[in-house]
């Protein structure tokens, strides 16, 4: 079966440099794996659904459809803009709406955009800890795109398409992880009949 990659873009404007960066990943993935499927999900379109889910604790059919897509993907590209030195609240709310452990073992490439290169550590300081908690298999290369990167990306000569080169590196890592053995752990929502607690129901502790 061909590889299914889903990109999650938390870009809030339309058009968005964050979504543009996600699409650049798509190009690199298609170049490396022509039969892979690649789809970008933009959280902006789900903003009300995501907020509602944080209040009522369940996803609307529209949001659930996207969550199912994300859960079924072989690999994720996750791209956020930098707001006040971190990812936007909507981005966090989307991951809050996911069932616990649903991303366990999932190969993930992180990327971010920002108004200045001085935000470039947002991937490592803000995004990586979240994905460490989510137990994803996050690849080492994160790609941060500042206004300078967009301006320089088409130059020829030394340092040509530096952004593209970093994306290619990240995608190479992502494909390698997705097509490899992974962590050997994945989300499993079946009910464990043999947990200690479950077993204590049909077999009460010995009585004095």
């Amino acid at each position, binding site marked *: 079966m061909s590889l299914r990659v889903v990109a999650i873009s938390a870009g809030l404007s339309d058009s968005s440099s964050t979504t543009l960066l996600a699409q650049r990943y798509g190009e690199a993935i298609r170049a490396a794996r022509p039969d892979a499927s690649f789809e970008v999900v933009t959280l902006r379109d789900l903003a009300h659904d995501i907020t509602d889910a944080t209040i*009522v*604790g369940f996803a609307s059919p529209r949001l659930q459809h996207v969550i199912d897509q994300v859960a079924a993907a072989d690999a994720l590209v996750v791209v956020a803009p930098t707001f006040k030195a971190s990812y936007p609240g909507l981005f966090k709310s989307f991951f809050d709406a996911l069932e616990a452990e649903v991303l366990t073992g999932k190969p993930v490439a992180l990327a971010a955009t920002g108004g200045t290169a001085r935000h470039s550590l947002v991937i490592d300081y803000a995004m990586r800890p979240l994905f460490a908690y989510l137990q994803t298999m996050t690849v080492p290369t994160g790609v941060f795109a500042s206004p300078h990167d967009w301006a320089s990306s088409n130059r020829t000569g030394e340092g040509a398409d530096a952004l593209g080169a970093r994306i290619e590196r990240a995608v190479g890592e992502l494909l390698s992880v997705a097509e490899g053995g992974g962590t050997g752990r994945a989300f499993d929502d079946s009910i464990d009949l043999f947990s200690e607690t479950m077993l204590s129901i049909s077999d009460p502790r010995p009585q004095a």
Partner: protein
Amino acid sequence: MTTMQFGLFTVGDVTPDPVNGTTPSEHERIKNTVAIAQKAEEIGLDVFATGEHHNPPFVPSSPTTTLAYIGAQTEKIILSTSTTLITTNDPVKIAEDYATLQHLVDGRMDLMLGRGNTAPVYPWFGYDGSKAVELTIEHYQLLRRLWDEDVVNWEGQFRTPLQGFTATPRPLDGVAPFVWHGSIRTPEVAELAAYYGDGYFANNIFWPKEHYIRLINFYRQRYAHYGHGSPEQAIVGLGGQFFIRKNSQDAVREFRPYFDNAPVYGHGPSLEDFTAQTPLTVGSPQEFVEKTLTFADYFGDYQRQLFLVDHAGLPTKIVLEQLDLLGEVLPTLRAEFDARRPAGVPDAPTHAARVAAKAEAEAEKEEALA
């Protein structure tokens, strides 16, 4: 003959009325609860159940007191809970309180057990909230024995041991109150209900059906696994919510401000989205009947349907009007559910039926020995 039971369950919240800005006093709320229960009997409902909470803005901290008072003023309606906190109540006190209630109302009661607490509540009663599931299991295992065995020697993890203890009064007619286990997400609770052949109540009012289909099917399968009957014979209860007026648009217009400001889902999804995604009906009595009937399509034919009506700050006058409208469609609801019900689906449990079943089982046993 009660094939399926219909009733009310109340949370007992004191919520400001978002339309007129008034908030009932605790005294008013408690008295209104009694009036609502009396109305429930008057319109022909089978069950009235009260929640149990120990923090504001909720008033029902002492369910058996309230239920006994209602029992003295009603004749037919079954008194129950939604839920009795199996985690933070001492099982010895649950055994005593509910057996006393059982005697006072001549068996016209049962109870629904649940965890039902937020973390800060546990230490108020001497327990650790991180042990909620373990407490549920151990407390219920003890409660079961206190009702089923005359003399109990017991030692557990969470309570001082019992030696030669007899919980009094003994259950009426030697038949303990029927137990429902309420849970919205914990498979261990469904397993507990299945193991003992008790009822399982899924309060499905806040989430989409897919979530509950999984838990109810798990309970049904495990009920059969433990030899109590086929999966279709497991005892299932469900929640529901409605606001009805003769004219659908009137219902929507009148209920919208209550919906928009409701404690659980207010300021979130639109009324239209929420009604599409959950069991809530806001519309005509006919729409309400149609939607309620779909529950049996999703979850299988079941035994008990409880509705939440007095909530979100609705004034008692409107709640009583809602019950009058419910009373008008209740015969239709009963007839439609009965019509679709396959043979072999058990009736809802009652004390009289359980006493008769016990006598029958004992007669069979004697016959086998003779």
